[in-house]
């Protein structure tokens, strides 16, 4: 009996120590990102997290004089992580739209791009956004691409991210997937995959920004940092590095 009580006490003690060490100081900036969305956020050959969004976030952190700590999160739970204070900033090509403006603090844009529709290479039926009506696409459930596809009358299968969507497309389980032209371009470049093609553009440019909790007070500093990084050419340089062209909108 006494041994049981001792064991219980030890277990309790272990628990309290576990719970007691999970808060980050204010000199740390916790940044949420997928880590599976090349070229914005992915694991480099050395196993380290890298990518355009990752490097921009690092540069912003440096400007703010804060230690940047990345937290890898699937897209669909990224905003939940933000609201539950597990992260302070989302750096994952957050497209600016009215809904998100209402719910979060958004920075000034650091990427400008457009949406494209990806189909199987031998598919000639889909040549515009309108052709998605009645077709099936795969998107992250909470991404703006899901809204674009739904708006075009497509039936949307929810998936984790772009990688999974392409797999489903090639297996013939879906007809198309809508995503960022930069992500699609990177995929084609890095895999040399001839099985899928860009069939059309969605016809609208979109701007991507960092997102923080509403009234976090973080954004004025982040915006100032972004402005400085734009002015000194850092953004353009990072953009050239990852996309071969300047998409920073500066």
């Amino acid at each position: 009996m006494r041994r049981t009580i001792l064991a219980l006490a030890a277990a309790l003690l272990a628990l309290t120590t576990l719970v007691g060490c999970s808060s980050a100081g204010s000199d740390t900036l916790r940044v949420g990102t997928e880590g599976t969305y090349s070229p914005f956020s992915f694991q480099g050959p050395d196993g380290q997290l890298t990518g355009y969004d990752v490097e921009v976030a690092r540069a912003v952190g440096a400007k703010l004089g804060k230690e940047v700590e990345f937290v890898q999160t699937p897209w669909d739970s990224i905003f939940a992580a933000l609201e539950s204070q597990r992260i302070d900033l989302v750096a994952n090509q957050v497209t600016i739209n009215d809904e998100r403006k209402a719910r979060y603090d958004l920075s000034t844009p650091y990427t400008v791009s457009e949406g494209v529709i990806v189909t199987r290479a031998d598919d000639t039926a889909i040549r515009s956004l309108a052709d998605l009506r009645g077709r099936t696409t795969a998107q992250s459930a909470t991404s703006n691409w899901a809204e674009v596809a739904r708006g075009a009358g497509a039936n949307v299968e929810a998936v984790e991210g772009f990688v999974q969507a392409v797999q489903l497309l090639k297996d013939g389980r879906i007809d198309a997937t809508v995503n960022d032209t930069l992500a699609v371009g990177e995929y084609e470049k890095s895999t040399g995959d001839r099985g899928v093609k860009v069939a059309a553009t969605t016809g609208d440019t979109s701007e991507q920004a960092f997102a923080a909790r509403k009234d976090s007070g973080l954004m004025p500093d982040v915006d100032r940092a972004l402005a400085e990084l734009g002015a000194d050419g850092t953004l353009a340089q990072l953009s050239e590095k990852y996309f071969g062209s300047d998409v920073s909108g500066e």
Partner: protein
Amino acid sequence: MDPATWELIGRNLWPMLKATVTMTIPLTAISFVIGLALALLLALARISSITPLTWLARVYISVIRGTPLLVQLFIVFYALPQLGLVIDPFPSAVIAFSLNVGGYAAEIIRAAILSIPKGQWEAAQTIGMGYATTLRRVILPQAARTAVPPLSNTLISLVKDTSLASTILVTELLRVAQLAAAPTFDFFALYGVAAVYYWIVCLILSSVQVRVEARLERYVAR
């Protein structure tokens, strides 16, 4: 919880119930029945005197018990297409869950069969019963009694494991909750409702278990 969240829950009570009845429960039932049949064959292979058969069953059980169920699902759904075999989400899930239940339940059935005293086999043989008849009329009815509680465990686990099928496009209970929560990020509320649904299904199964146990007790000499 604000009124909008309650309204969202209200709107999704029926779709979630429908997903439970048309997807989660059938997926569980079909997989469990196929899995049990497979498990019986595996258990008999494990205790047979034919060495290659024994090893085959051993390796199979080891692989199934030693790899994550999620990986097994992904192999059926994502890896088979690379061999030119594209199976729809629901059948894919049925295949993966059946194979999984087969591996786990095989050990339960084997233990239950071995718990029947050897004398029962011998007695059946002396009155001229063959292997199949002995199994069907003497051994299995007695082994069933021992096997019901652990098999109920497997079944109840399976009910909740079917939520993993949400990752391979099966629109079961959890996926309906996910899709409903996505626009407003009210995951907590809708997952809570899903949890309650799973719990209700498991409560019903537990009460069935009690009845089945009572029924199998009928002929036990006290």
